[in-house]
C-alpha cells in the first residue's frame, strides 16, 4: 500500500463512478422475495443467497466476471442503419432506441470483447438484456458477425452469451433475416474447427434461440434460465392449460437433452476455461498436429 492506492485511487474512482450505489441498498430477490444486501449480492455474483436464484446481469458485470482478472478489450462494432423500416407504433422506434441508449449507455443490445479465460484467448459476444430486452435487430446481427469474424481472425474460440426475448419487432423482416445471418456467421467459426460455445442465460427465446444460440458445439445454461422458442404466454393461450412445473427452465432443457450442462454462475469461468482448454490443447497425443494432415478429404473444406 502506498499513498497512490490510498489517496489517489479512491478519488479517481469517485470521479469515474459518480453514481456509486449507496451502502445501505437492499434488493428484493424476484424468485423468493427475500431482501438481499447489495454487497452480498455483488459478492455472490448476483445469485440470491437464500434461494440460489441467478438474477439477470448487466453486460459489463457479465464480462467482468468471465474474463481473467476482469480484464478484456471491447471492440467497436461496424455501424448499421438505425430504424431501417421507419417503424412507428405508439412511439417512434428511433425514440425507443434513443431512450435505450441513454438508459444503458450502450449503442445496442450486444457487446463484443476479447481477452483471456483461464489463459485462453477467446472472443465473447454478450447480449445486454437491459437494451430493448436484448432483442436482435440488424445491429445485434452485426455484432454476432463481427464476433465470429474476430474469432476466425484471432484463431480463438467464440463464446456467445444470449439474453434476449427474440427478434426486434421494430426491424420487421430484417430482424428475421438475422437468424439466417448469424447462423452463417457462427458456421464460419465452426468451419475453422474453432470451438463455438453458447452460454444460455435468462431469457433466451424466440428468433435468438431458433438460430445461433442453439447451434453451439457445447451448450451451457445458467440455473433457472428460461430457454425456449415460443413465449410461455403464447403457449398458454394456444393450448389453454397450465404449463408444467419448471417448463422451459434450464434444468428442463437438460433433462430433455437440449443442452449439455447447467452451471452455477460461480463455476462458469472455470468451466469455460476447462472446455476451451480440452478442445484446443489436447495434450501430448493431440498436440502432434502434423498427423492431422492425413485426415481424409471429406473433412477438408473445399469451398471459399
Amino acid at each position, binding site marked *: 500500500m502506498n499513498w497512490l492506492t490510498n489517496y489517489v485511487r479512491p478519488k479517481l474512482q469517485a470521479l469515474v463512478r459518480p453514481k456509486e450505489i449507496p451502502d445501505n441498498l437492499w434488493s428484493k430477490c424476484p424468485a423468493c422475495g427475500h431482501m438481499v444486501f447489495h454487497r452480498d449480492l455483488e459478492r455472490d455474483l448476483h445469485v440470491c443467497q437464500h434461494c440460489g436464484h441467478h438474477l439477470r446481469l448487466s453486460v459489463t458485470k457479465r464480462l467482468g466476471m468471465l474474463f481473467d482478472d476482469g480484464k478484456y478489450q471491447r471492440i467497436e462494432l461496424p455501424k448499421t442503419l438505425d430504424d431501417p423500416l421507419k417503424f412507428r407504433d405508439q412511439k417512434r422506434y428511433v425514440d425507443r432506441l434513443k431512450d435505450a441508449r441513454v438508459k444503458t449507455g450502450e449503442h445496442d443490445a450486444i457487446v463484443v470483447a476479447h481477452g483471456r479465460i483461464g489463459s485462453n484467448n477467446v472472443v465473447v459476444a454478450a447480449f445486454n438484456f437491459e437494451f430493448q430486452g436484448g432483442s436482435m435487430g440488424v445491429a445485434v446481427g452485426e455484432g454476432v458477425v463481427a464476433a465470429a469474424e474476430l474469432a476466425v481472425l484471432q484463431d480463438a474460440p467464440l463464446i456467445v452469451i444470449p439474453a434476449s426475448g427474440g427478434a426486434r419487432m421494430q426491424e420487421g423482416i430484417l430482424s428475421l433475416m438475422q437468424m439466417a445471418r448469424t447462423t452463417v456467421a457462427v458456421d464460419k467459426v465452426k468451419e475453422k474447427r474453432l470451438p463455438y460455445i453458447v452460454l444460455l442465460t435468462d431469457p433466451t427465446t424466440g*428468433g435468438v434461440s431458433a438460430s445461433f444460440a442453439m447451434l453451439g458445439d457445447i451448450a451451457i445454461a445458467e440455473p433457472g434460465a428460461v430457454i425456449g422458442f415460443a413465449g410461455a404466454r403464447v*403457449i398458454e393461450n*394456444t393450448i389453454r392449460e397450465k404449463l408444467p412445473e419448471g417448463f422451459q427452465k434450464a434444468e428442463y432443457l437438460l433433462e430433455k437433452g437440449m443442452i449439455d450442462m447447467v452451471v452455477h454462475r460461480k463455476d462458469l469461468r472455470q468451466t469455460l476455461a476447462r472446455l476451451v482448454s480440452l478442445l484446443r490443447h489436447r495434450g501430448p497425443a493431440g498436440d502432434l498436429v502434423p498427423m492431422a494432415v492425413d485426415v481424409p478429404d471429406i473433412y477438408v473444406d473445399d469451398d471459399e
Partner: protein
Amino acid sequence: MSGGMHVLDFEKPIAEIEGKIEELRRLTDTGDVNVADEVGRLQVKVDRLLRSTYAKLTPWQKTQVARHPDRPHALDYINALIEDFTPLAGDRCFGEDQAIVGGLGRFRGSSVVILGNEQGNDTQSRLARNFGMAKPEGYRKAKRLMEMANHFGIPVITLVDTKGAYPGVDAEARGQAEAIARSIEAALNLRVPMVTAIIGEGGSGGAIALAAGNTVLMLEHAIYSVISPEGCASILWRSSDAAKDAATALKLTAQDLLALKVIDQIVPEPLGGAHRNREQTIRTLSMALDAALGELTPNEGGVLRAKRREKFLDMGRVGLE
C-alpha cells in the same frame, strides 16, 4: 366466378355485382340480347373494380388475401407441377409431421426435392396438419430431406406458407428452437440449388426454417414477416385492433420486401388474387421456379453454397452504402 368462394370484406362490392350477374344469367338462359348486354356491362364493372381494388391493397388487406382459404396451398402446386411425386415421411427421431410435406419428384423433367408448409383445406386435414404449424419433427424432416438432396445433387424447392412454428408444450419439450436453427443451417450449407417461394403467409421462425434459398420468390399478394400483424399489435400497441397499423409498420408485403432486398423477385398473381384463378397462379409460379432453377443449375456446388451464405450474411446492410 364467386360461386361458393369465400368473400373478403373489401371484396364485397365486387361480389355484389358478381351476384347480380349470376342472377341475370339464371333468369334467362335463352340468350336474351338485352340481358347479355347487361351482363357484359356488369362484367366490365367487375374487372374495373377488381383492378382498382387490387392495385392499391393495403398491407392488412394483403394479409387477408395471403390467408384466403381458396388460395392454392403447397400440395396444390405439388400435385399440379411435380410428376412422380413421392412423399417421404418422418424425422427418424420422433415422428412424422404433416404440417410440412416433402418428398422427391420431377419438376419439368428433372428430379427435385420439394418441401412445403401445408395447412390443409378442410377441418379434417387442417387438424391432421395442425393448421400448417410445424413441430420439431417437421423441421427435422425438412433438414433430413435437404441433406438427402445435397447428397444426391438434386435441387431443392421450398414453398413457404405458415403462420409460424407451433407454440406448444410438446414442441418445446422436443426442442423447437434447435430444430428450426438446424433447418436454417442445413439450407445454408447446401451445395445444390435451392429456390424458395413465399406462396401465402411467411410467418416468423417457422418460415425462415424453409426459406434460406439462393433465390427467394414471393407471390404478389403474399406476406412475410417476423411476427403476425395481430401478434405485433398485441405487444406493441397492446390491442389486437391495431393489427392494421402493425401490418403497415412491419413492411410485410412483397413490394416492401423487394425494396429491402429480402426477396429476389415478385411473381404476379391473376387479377383479383391467386384465389380467383388458381390454375393461372400455379402456371405463373411454375415458370418463375423454372427460370430461377435454370439460372442456378450451371453453378458449381461450392459456388451455390458460398453465394447463398454471402447473400444472407449481407441481410440488413441495405442503405448503408
